């Protein structure tokens, strides 16, 4: 096989650069073979044996298109340059090879699964790249910021090093803020037997606390019986799933689901996040032996759709002007919530302008799959590697793009800034708060 021509700016990443020095041929061989032999599913072999190297998947990948169709970014190249040689050479690859494999799998693929839809055989390239990440994780070759996030999960059971007191304190502060709009707003903590446990991702209490105030108002107006955990288990996010640290992934998911069991709720409603849904609905339960979450889980899009459709929340004044949307891969491509997302957008916006391509076929934001969590060193490549997203959003002429996913939100913000799109980036709940009717008896 001809080696791929790779042109990249040099990026320094302390964990990768130091990690590569500690690799030995024996260690690499042992870990690669152990993962391939004992941790992969049969489908890996099916994929490897089925792929005819036709390259049809390339046109699906935002990295490839945005980088002027540079073949080194094509999905099949990412496999050809990582897991194929590992298997072919039975783990006898060198440290520099592992370094390149880490860079490809963590920083040049958002495991968005768009390419799988363009492959005539439906080959899931993202799965293979996740196995590459697993190998890299076991070789301590995870980009610094992503690894630090996983350390936070492992130490605190949340993504952002939020300490136990900060969590409760933030909820109480946001409860007070919410009472400024609706005096009886509450964030009920540890209310056993409530209908709903609401869970969020670590960045909400850390950077976006107002979202917690918003949900408290929304829950009050919609008259929902809900609770939030006061203790660890409140965070539904899971970067360990993306770093390849499946043991920490499972521990985090177990705690989250056992918290719902402990509180004896009927369902979990989770905030606007895509990867967290994937971790809590699919990857976490599967590792633990659950078919699906033991207490059913729904994403915020499904929850808001239900509240709006049943009239539990009424709209007082729709948002004016053109507003568009980003489809988070993990809940739209992989869960099929595209139509519900459009239902709520239309319910709240006067002029919802759809993107093209849309729904399952929408382009990834390029921030997901842990890519944005690789941090500042890798930001330039990530943002420039999604020029087509910028062009797509620009075509809508919208003043605001709604992103019902935290990673999409940050990723799209970077795209809006870099490509000077002059758009606001908002969560759906921020629009809902602006547009919804607050009944007179609840008002301050």
């Amino acid at each position: 096989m001809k080696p791929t021509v790779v042109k990249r700016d040099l990026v320094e990443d302390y964990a990768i650069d130091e990690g590569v020095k500690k690799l030995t041929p024996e260690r690499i061989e042992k870990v690669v073979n152990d993962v391939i032999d004992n941790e992969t599913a049969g489908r890996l072999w099916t994929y490897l044996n089925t792929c005819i190297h036709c390259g049809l998947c390339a046109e699906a990948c935002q990295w490839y298109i945005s980088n002027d169709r540079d073949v080194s970014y094509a999905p099949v190249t990412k496999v050809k340059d990582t897991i194929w040689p590992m298997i072919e050479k039975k783990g006898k690859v060198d440290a520099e090879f592992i370094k390149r494999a880490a860079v490809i799998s963590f920083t040049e693929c958002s495991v968005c699964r768009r390419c799988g839809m363009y492959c005539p055989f439906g080959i899931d390239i993202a799965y293979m790249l996740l196995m590459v990440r697993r190998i890299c994780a076991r070789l301590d070759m995870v980009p610094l910021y992503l690894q630090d996030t996983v350390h936070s999960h492992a130490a605190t059971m949340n993504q952002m090093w939020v300490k136990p007191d900060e969590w409760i304190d933030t909820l109480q502060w946001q409860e007070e803020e919410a009472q400024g709009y609706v005096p009886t707003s509450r964030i009920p903590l540890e209310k056993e037997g409530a209908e709903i446990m609401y869970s969020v991702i670590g960045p909400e209490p850390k950077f976006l606390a107002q979202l917690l105030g918003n949900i408290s108002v929304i829950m009050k107006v919609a008259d929902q019986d809900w609770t939030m955990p006061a203790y660890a288990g409140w965070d539904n996010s899971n970067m360990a799933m993306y770093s390849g640290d499946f043991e920490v992934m499972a521990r985090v998911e177990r705690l989250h689901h056992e918290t719902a069991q402990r509180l004896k709720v009927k369902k979990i409603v989770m905030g606007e996040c895509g990867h967290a849904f994937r971790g809590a609905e699919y990857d976490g339960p599967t590792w633990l032996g659950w078919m699906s979450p033991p207490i059913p889980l729904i994403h915020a899009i499904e929850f808001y759709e239900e509240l709006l459709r049943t009239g539990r929340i009424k709209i007082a004044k729709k948002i004016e002007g053109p507003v568009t949307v980003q489809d988070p891969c993990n809940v739209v491509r992989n869960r099929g919530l595209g139509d519900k997302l459009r239902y709520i957008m239309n319910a709240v916006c006067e002029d919802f302008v759809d993107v093209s391509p849309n729904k399952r076929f929408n382009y990834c934001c390029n921030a997901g799959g842990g890519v944005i969590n690789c941090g500042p060193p890798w930001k330039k490549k990530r943002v420039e590697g999604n020029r087509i997203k910028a062009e797509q959003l620009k075509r809508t002429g919208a003043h605001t793009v709604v992103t019902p996913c935290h990673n999409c939100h940050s990723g799209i913000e970077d795209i809006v800034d870099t490509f000077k799109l002059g758009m606001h980036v908002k969560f759906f709940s921020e629009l809902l708060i602006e547009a919804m009717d607050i009944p007179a008896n609840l008002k301050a």
Partner: protein
Amino acid sequence: MVNIQKWDWNTKEKMVADTTGWPNQFEDVQEPYVSPDGEKIASIVKQGEGEYSVCVNGETWEEPFEKLWSCRFTPDGRVSVMSSRDMEWTMTVDGEPWETAYEYIWDPKFSADGKLIVATVKQDDIFGIVTNGTTWECPTELQSISSFVMTPDAQTVAAIAQTVPLGQADVDTYYKGTWSIVVNGKPWENNYVNLYGVAVSDDGSTVAAEHRAAITDHTILVNGVPWSEMYSCTWEPMFHPKKNDEVTAPVRQGGKWYLATNGRIVWDRGYVNILNPRYNVDGTKIAAVVATSFAKWTVAVDDKPWSCTFGECVLPPCFDSQGVTAVAIARDSGKWFMVADGKVIGDPCDNIWPPVFSPDGDKMFYKIEKNGKFYIAVNGKIATGAYDMLWDPILSTNGADVLIRGIEDGKYYRRVVASAAM
């Protein structure tokens, strides 16, 4: 332990409080809690902006607080709540705040007799454990406390605590170990990468925890000494009820889960998962939740799985008071089932709470939910009328009577029913 024989087991029915009017009396009324003896019902109430109190049987405390949360009864029937005034927090019991206030206080736990309240506190950015207003003395400035456990008498408290400060994205310090176990203020000698699932023996002599040294290197530490084996993953250890030197935990090897005692595999069948093992009273049996294959959940007793399996999940098992029958609550197709020794008992429910057993172990009493109403069931049969809210049943010491605490149409009742009649 609280001497429950001293409670009133003679009055058959008492309407303790009518809460119907409470919402008109206050700006907001939070969910109620009731005392173990059933004599009191309490809710946090909002009296005005930044003015909160607790309403107990219709009476509020004299002085309001700026904020209150976590209203819970102690086992001896006092109302505890975390309270704030002038931006400081403390524990308030029956309206009386502790003398000392803190930056923050959370996670209260009670000794079995209810006399001691233990909680986590933060003061000047240092974390600690407080018992009845006295914070433990610890030579290390603790950066965080992730969880703690204690003996039933609350004389020994063991916490997983961060002992070394950690800068942003400082992976090198992290790998050197920044966490330890602190027992009554005394940290273990070493620091560790990650610690989970701390447990303490009933006599307080021994503390165990999971240690994760690296991505697939896990083991169990007992008083700081690791088991000789490493595993790719572990779950939390538990102590034998009678022997403080017998520690058991689920461990993962080669993609399967086993149960190990003191580092030796004792359940060797190998499962997709093993969760929440529990000993019976004398430690002669162990029951655990297991997945025999993907999405087939059941309970195994001494490594023998029940033949029935459930598609969704099984909650932590328990044994009856004689330690013979294993019981668990299981979920399948969106419904909950009570299961004893592998047999489904009674109809499916919308929710089921853990049972209490008669002294001879023959009868179990538990709260269930059906169509939005709550009942007490006995061995699968509904044995009470419908309640809007209901708490777990409590048996008198000799098992002759059952105390039922529940709300019907806003009225809170305390009822005593002969267990033979249920």
